[in-house]
């Protein structure tokens, strides 16, 4: 039983020439455990965890509806009911439909596109704070969590898009070759959402009141994004810079882009392309950087 005794002796530095534990550690090449990896290393770690990210996203989607009787059917029913409610409110009761041609398609496109970003923002903000036990039990790049939540929303979007395309066809719009560009705009929006999700994940992790505030923020955003009305039409009397700000709003940009393709059958203007691309790249870089800066602090304290 020499070993525990020797270890104890080492631990207390007693008996023999005292050597600090730090020096002992250095001599054996042991390192402190906590450190933030460099950005390239971090990206590599995330890539290595891609199977976990995908499986986690799918699993969450499956388990979400597993308790309900209709099960996975809700993935289609939820966007359909959403569209129905908004159409009833803004199309029938408030009578917006007169000034905008094919209002149901206009409205539902806006709702679906906005919901994708809105849900990513809300769930991204919870991705760290509601997974503390997982963070405290296992090692993995924490960015995997907001990424998984965004992928989960993307999977939901798949159903919403099918519903959307169907409804647009039902309302009498023709199929157009421009529809081939739909994946392109969805990709830009996805990249934007990934960045937003990561940004919100850090905010939500350290500002505990964020989850209470977010529904109000996203609802304000919803009303400012021209989901129910045409921004051009309503902002004629506003000063230029305000109009410009409203048009530059990323949610509005992605919505307009999708409406151009789906309903108006016109190739989006250069301005729209620039805005959508800018927001995607900007959000991705800022979101990733901001999230990564606090990597070693998630789940602590």
């Amino acid at each position: 039983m020499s070993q525990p005794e020797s270890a104890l002796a080492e631990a207390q530095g007693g008996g023999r020439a005292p050597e600090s534990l730090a020096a002992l550690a250095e001599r054996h090449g042991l390192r402190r455990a906590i450190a933030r990896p460099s950005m390239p290393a971090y990206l590599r770690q995330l890539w290595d965890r891609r199977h976990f990210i995908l499986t986690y996203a799918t699993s969450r989607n499956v388990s979400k509806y597993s308790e309900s009787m209709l099960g996975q059917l809700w993935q289609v029913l939820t966007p359909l009911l959403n569209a129905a409610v908004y159409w009833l409110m803004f199309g029938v009761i408030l009578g917006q439909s007169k000034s905008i041609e094919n209002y149901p398609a206009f409205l539902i496109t806006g709702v679906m596109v906005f919901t994708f970003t809105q849900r990513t923002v809300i769930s991204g903000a919870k991705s760290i704070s509601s997974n503390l036990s997982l963070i405290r039990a296992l090692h993995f790049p924490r960015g995997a969590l907001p990424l998984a939540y965004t992928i989960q929303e993307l999977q939901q979007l798949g159903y919403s898009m099918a519903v959307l395309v169907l409804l647009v066809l039902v309302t009498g719009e023709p199929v157009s070759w421009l529809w081939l560009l739909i994946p392109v705009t969805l990709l830009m929006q996805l990249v934007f959402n990934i960045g937003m999700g990561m940004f919100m994940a850090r905010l939500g992790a350290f500002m505990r009141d964020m989850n209470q505030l977010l529904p109000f923020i996203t609802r304000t955003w919803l009303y400012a994004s021209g989901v129910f009305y045409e921004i051009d039409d309503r902002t004629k009397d506003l000063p230029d810079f305000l109009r410009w700000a409203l048009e530059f709003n990323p949610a509005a940009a992605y919505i307009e882009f999708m409406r151009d393709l789906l309903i108006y059958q016109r190739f989006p203007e250069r301005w729209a392309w620039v805005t959508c691309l800018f927001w995607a790249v900007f959000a991705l870089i800022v979101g990733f950087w901001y999230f990564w800066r606090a990597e070693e602090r998630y789940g602590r304290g």
Partner: protein
Amino acid sequence: MAELTKELSQVAPQDSKTQHPETQNSNDVEVGTPTVIVDDLHIVYKVYGSAGDAEKGNAASALMRILRRQGRPQMKEVHAVKGVSFVAHHGDAIGIIGRNGSGKSTLLRAIAGLLPPHKGAVYTNGQPSLLGVNAALMKELTGERNIILGCYAMGMTPNEVREKYDEIVDFSGIGDFVQFPMSTYSSGMGARLRFAISSAKTHDVLLIDEALATGDREFKKKSQQRIKQMRESAGTVFLVAHNLDVIEETCNRVIWLHKGKIRMEGDPQEVLEAYNKA
């Protein structure tokens, strides 16, 4: 302990760097390389939401607090580990015992690098991993999906998952239940599956927190066998358990934590005897 010494000499350091005089103590027995060094470790963490008696979820009092510009009284600091030092070597299986709230689990998390030290440091070789995949599993999902999810959460590749899948199902002994949601499992079955999943991966330094508390006698035996294997391949195993038999059978060293400090440390029999008297 003769076999232990033999075992230790097998895993004795080959690295020239490690051939240093610290191993030449009075008995001249070669000691394994240090794998984990804990140096005067203090862990303090903040707890939210543990409100005092006067105020519990009351909006008016929360408002008063903000008006009076007081901080958050619900935020408490807990000094869970107070100056712990020890050195763990290759081939060690170290049991950590102590009452509830003595800082055992906190110490494990700190060794795993999941909690930052307030003072002092933990030095490790490689990545110590906590045997605790539980948090990644979802009870609404089938055992099958959970096995895959858990394996990925621990960082396995798809090939490794395919390789280990049958072994995990066999080891857990849940049979056809693997097709059912985990919410339908008995608590013993759930514990077995969780242990089977989390022990499927090999680790350098392994930290086990109360994994063996549940399960029947047969499974207990199987899991002890598994821990022994892991200890041989892992190098160092830390084990927290309230079941002292498990510690006595699996560990070659015991640390007794009391209120965040080491009360006693050394041979399992001696420490356990003292612990039982206390």
